[in-house]
């Protein structure tokens, strides 16, 4: 036993091994978080869509038949049976909470199993590759869509730094000095996936979808990159961990209520930051191919867009790639504008002074809460706005956002120069 502890100790004392091990753990964690959030956002999407349209949404999936038999059928008040099964008294607060959530007559799973079952269904579907496609590119394309968001997530910090006896761990897979640039560069790669899918399908609607995707993604990349420059001027750094630390100390970008956030300059900067926020969020929508900007898979004029010819798990990887891009996009918005993992109001420093690990855990939870909130926003916008027309999308990107973003940079610079 002692030898094992000693061996672990010696391994962890080695700087390279320590770095490698912690990185692998963080990597697995962030990967799991993203995949879990892909599943969760599918559920959020369908449920919120239902609620907005006065429907319950998917609420049936998730009770295997053997459980149904065990708890009694639906007419026989399954909630009562479920509570009884877990030994919860009927007048306890849990039971009251369930009643308040209107679970009495319904099966209390909230339809959370639906995305898992959908995934299972997609695995079992027939994999059909048309004979006229270019096989190599046809196979590579879904990977190229799913891969980039996963890689881009590496620089997103999900908690602050923790110091252990072997060294410090920064809760961010790769603590790069070029955070946002890395994300822009990598998420730009997903253009290849979409346009390759469109081109290799060797069929006209996917081809048009691929063309649209590449044009749209490239145009909005420009405005997106320019829109964050006022922020970077304010932070004075490109390291996302430092950016979040700055926000934890001096107020979130959009809620500057403590630290240096209360100065006149910071409030004067609020105008360019608000403009950046609107442009950036819109561009994230366009980058993630979400409605109002999902021109690449616009069913009304392009059948299914670039993934018309795909089926089974290849189609599912496009789907997952879109949602992963959405998750990473919202993570980036949260990091840049809503203080990332920061709990706010100086609570980070106080918690960190008390116990590092508790602080990190709370920050991680805070990050996830913000992420869910922003994913909800994505879904909410999707079920509110109709799709733009193609020429409107291009006009908005090149004639409005680009100009406004450039003017915004000068506005921010003037405010920073004249108001001290």
């Amino acid at each position, binding site marked *: 036993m002692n030898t094992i502890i000693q061996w672990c100790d010696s391994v962890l004392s080695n700087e390279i091994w320590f770095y490698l091990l912690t990185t692998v753990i963080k990597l697995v964690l962030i990967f799991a978080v993203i995949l879990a959030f892909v599943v969760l956002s599918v559920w959020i999407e369908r449920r*919120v869509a*239902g*609620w*907005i*349209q*006065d*429907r*319950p*949404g998917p*609420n049936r999936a998730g009770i295997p038949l053997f459980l149904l038999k065990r708890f009694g059928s*639906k*007419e026989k008040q399954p909630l009562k049976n479920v509570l009884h099964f877990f030994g919860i008294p009927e007048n306890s607060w849990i039971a009251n909470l369930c009643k308040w959530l*209107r679970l009495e*007559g*319904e099966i209390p799973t909230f339809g959370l199993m639906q995305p898992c079952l959908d995934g299972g269904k997609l695995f079992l579907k027939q994999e059909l590759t048309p004979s006229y496609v270019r096989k190599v590119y046809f196979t590579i394309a879904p990977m190229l869509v799913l891969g980039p968001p996963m890689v881009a997530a590496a620089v997103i910090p999900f908690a602050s730094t923790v110091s252990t006896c072997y060294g410090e761990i920064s809760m961010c897979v790769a603590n790069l000095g070029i955070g946002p640039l890395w994300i822009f560069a990598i998420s730009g790669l997903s253009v290849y996936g979409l346009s390759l899918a469109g081109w290799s399908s060797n069929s006209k609607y996917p081809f048009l979808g691929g063309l649209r995707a590449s044009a749209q993604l490239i145009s909005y990349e420009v405005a997106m990159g320019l829109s964050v420059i006022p922020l970077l001027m304010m932070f004075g750094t490109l390291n996302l961990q430092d950016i979040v630390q700055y926000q934890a100390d001096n107020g979130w970008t959009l809620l500057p209520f403590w630290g240096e956030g209360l100065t006149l300059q910071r409030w004067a900067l609020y105008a360019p930051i608000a403009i950046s926020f*609107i442009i950036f969020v819109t561009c994230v929508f366009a980058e993630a191919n979400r409605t109002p900007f999902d021109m690449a898979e616009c069913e009304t004029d392009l059948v299914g867009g670039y993934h018309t010819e795909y089926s089974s798990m290849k189609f599912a990887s496009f789907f997952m790639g879109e949602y992963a891009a959405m998750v990473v996009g919202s993570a980036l918005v949260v990091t840049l504008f809503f203080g990332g993992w920061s709990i706010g109001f100086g609570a980070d420093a106080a918690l960190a002074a008390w116990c590092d690990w508790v602080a990190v855990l709370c920050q991680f939870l805070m990050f996830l809460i913000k992420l869910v909130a922003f994913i909800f926003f994505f879904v*909410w*916008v999707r*079920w*509110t*706005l109709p799709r733009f027309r193609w020429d409107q999308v291009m006009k908005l990107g090149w004639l409005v956002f680009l100009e406004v973003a450039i003017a915004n940079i000068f506005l921010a610079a003037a405010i920073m120069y004249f108001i001290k």
Partner: protein
Amino acid sequence: MSYVPIKRPKFSLLDKIYVVELVKGLIITFKHLALSLMGKSRSKKDFNGKGVGACMPFPEQRWDSRLPEYYRGAPTLVRGEDGRERCVSCQLCEFICPARAIKVTPGAVAEGSGLEKQEKAPAEFEIDMLRCIYCGMCQEVCPEQAIFLSKEYLITLTDRKQAIRNKATLYKLGGTRKGLVNKWNQYK
């Protein structure tokens, strides 16, 4: 001018900036979300809804009692008040059926049954419910008032063969119908 150009509405600058309108839209959808989560969706009572949203949870709750008089469900064969099987196997429904769902095998009327006047009766009468499109043409064309569309809409099968309904089943589903013209009355 042969065409009238559509008058587009004039937008103010505030409308053109779009952000305010977007927020208005978001508020409207959020209202719907909140109301349906609280179980207070508009027109919930009209739909006899239960729980979240305005929807009626289907298999548990049904619309059956509110189906209109003219609802077109599965076709059935009916008997008259005197208990006579009304079909005389003229095969008009078979010919009119646009989906070719009906197959009638004509047969003779049993001697001494008192129905010799009608000459024919179906030996077998089959409707393939997988083909039927519920158009109601069979009911319209029938000179004998023998085939009627019922209000049955839930036809669930585990096998294609189950979809074919034979004469016995159709008469059982149709039952007796009152107030029909008694054309083959032997005293006439």
